[in-house]
């Protein structure tokens, strides 16, 4: 990884930590910040897809589909910015989808690791259970308790975790030695 990429990762991690702190400090208003983050992320993803088309996918057989995806997602991102009044359901579905999938993967991965007698299975299982717990909490907080603050805390926790992962990744070694 180049130094510039490491710097980018550290900056992104700091931004995530900042957002997490803001959400914890003011969970009610923070909820709209979350909606804003998700909408801006969607728009940024759309723009990135368009850039991807012009730099890479235009060379690809059938690459036009990437162009269409980019246009649609950008449009969706801009549209979602205008409908941030009630993003609760959107956030619940987001948290549920991402963490339920990651949780299921973690548990499956743990079972596989256990089959190979690898001691890492406990960590995989722990990660899987944690993710599944977040998914369940998202449903409970959003749909049953209708607690905006709880959802914000939950999202802040996931942001905090992602920031830590980014920081660890920024300082990981990537060079390997070559012996002639």
């Amino acid at each position, binding site marked *: 990884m180049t130094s510039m990429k490491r710097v980018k990762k550290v900056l992104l991690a700091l931004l995530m930590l900042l957002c997490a702190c803001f959400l914890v400090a003011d969970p009610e208003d923070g909820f709209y910040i979350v909606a804003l983050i998700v909408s801006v992320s969607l728009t940024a993803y759309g723009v990135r897809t368009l850039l991807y088309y012009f730099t*890479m996918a235009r060379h690809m057989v059938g*690459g036009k589909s990437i162009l269409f995806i980019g246009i649609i997602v950008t449009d969706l991102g801009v549209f979602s910015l205008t409908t941030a009044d009630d993003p609760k359901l959107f956030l619940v579905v987001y948290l549920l989808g991402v963490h339920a999938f990651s949780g299921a993967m973690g548990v499956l991965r743990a079972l596989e690791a256990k089959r190979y007698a690898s001691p890492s299975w406990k960590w995989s299982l722990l990660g899987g259970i944690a993710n599944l717990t977040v998914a369940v909490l998202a449903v409970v907080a959003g749909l049953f308790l209708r607690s905006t603050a709880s959802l914000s805390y939950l999202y802040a926790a996931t942001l905090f975790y992602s920031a830590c992962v980014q920081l660890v990744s920024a300082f990981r070694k990537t*060079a390997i030695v070559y012996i002639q």
Partner: protein
Amino acid sequence: MQMDFHYYATYCAAVLAGYSHEDSMEICYSAQFVDCCSRTLLSGLKAPLSAATTQLQLELMNARTDPVGLQDITRIWASFHFLPGDLYAPVKKASRLYKNKVRLICGPNGALLKDTVELARGGSLQAAGIAMHVLADTWAHRYFAGTPSLVVNNTTYWFYELLPDGSERPVAFHHSPGSPDDVDRGVYNGSIFQSSENSIMNLGHGRAGHLPDYSFICYRYLPAWGDYEEIVKNNPVDYSYAFCQMIYALRYLRGDVPVFETGQYDMETPAPWGAEIRRILEKRQPDACADWKALGEAISGREIEDFDLGRYQAEYRRASKREKDDTFLGRFFLAAMAQKSMVTNKIFKSGNLLAGFSVDFDKKGFRGIRDFVKLVEAQRGGRTHD
């Protein structure tokens, strides 16, 4: 390729190249073990994780696709399963990243293949086995890259199987992991379309399913990188070249041939068995283990033991720390790290950072991933850089 070729056909090639039954068994075991040596397995053995030569499906699903994760994936798959054919391939006007990805496309008879075989010379039988795995896969996996890339590895609906009677039929890909391919009806498993460039679904030949791994199959399709030019892939012919090149390379490793040149094949040695080899390669079956095994036993007159993943694990576990490198698996791990180190270095030197950075030990001493200290110790007797 699958166990039928990496294990049984490699055994046949080793025996034909002049190796004893016992040595041939070690070579073919090592060749097949490349498809099993995952981080999960290494972690269970408390072995260096950087010796991983493959990633399990669930490891891949869990793998991060940030730059560091992608470099890790690329080091494994480009070094052992999709050896790049030409790291300096001319690519018409395109972005740097696009060029770097296209230059990782696997192909036979590249400069890296020569480097791979030469690296194994004078080394262990495990190194020879690893080299044979890499060599064979350059034929099976050609036209796909060992890095996640939609723009290189994607396939479209324009995919037709060419049948032995001269007719053809469209290949129906579906995504149902675990369910077997239906060779008779032409229904095959493939990874699902993911529009993300670095999605793990776009690694290697995932989009084309197991088709490149079947020796009998012939197909035509539009590769994503091919500018709408169709490719016809004739696996029986390619696999035949792979087999003859393995014999040639193994004869070089034994010292019977002074120099290894790409584009050279030993067609004469297997000639007496040519008809049977052709029959096996062209037989429409998803698994040719039984046929290759029978052929191997007919050639050597000895029984070929079935592949047993745990065969050498107890020996490695029992060995003391100092003795581990002299066990079967210890030698395999060192050979795997040497191969990974060499390929990463060549990719890095070509100006391509997709496999990560490479530090020349002779010039800069030890830096980077600690696992490779073991490789330095093995090759330099623990001497530190001065």
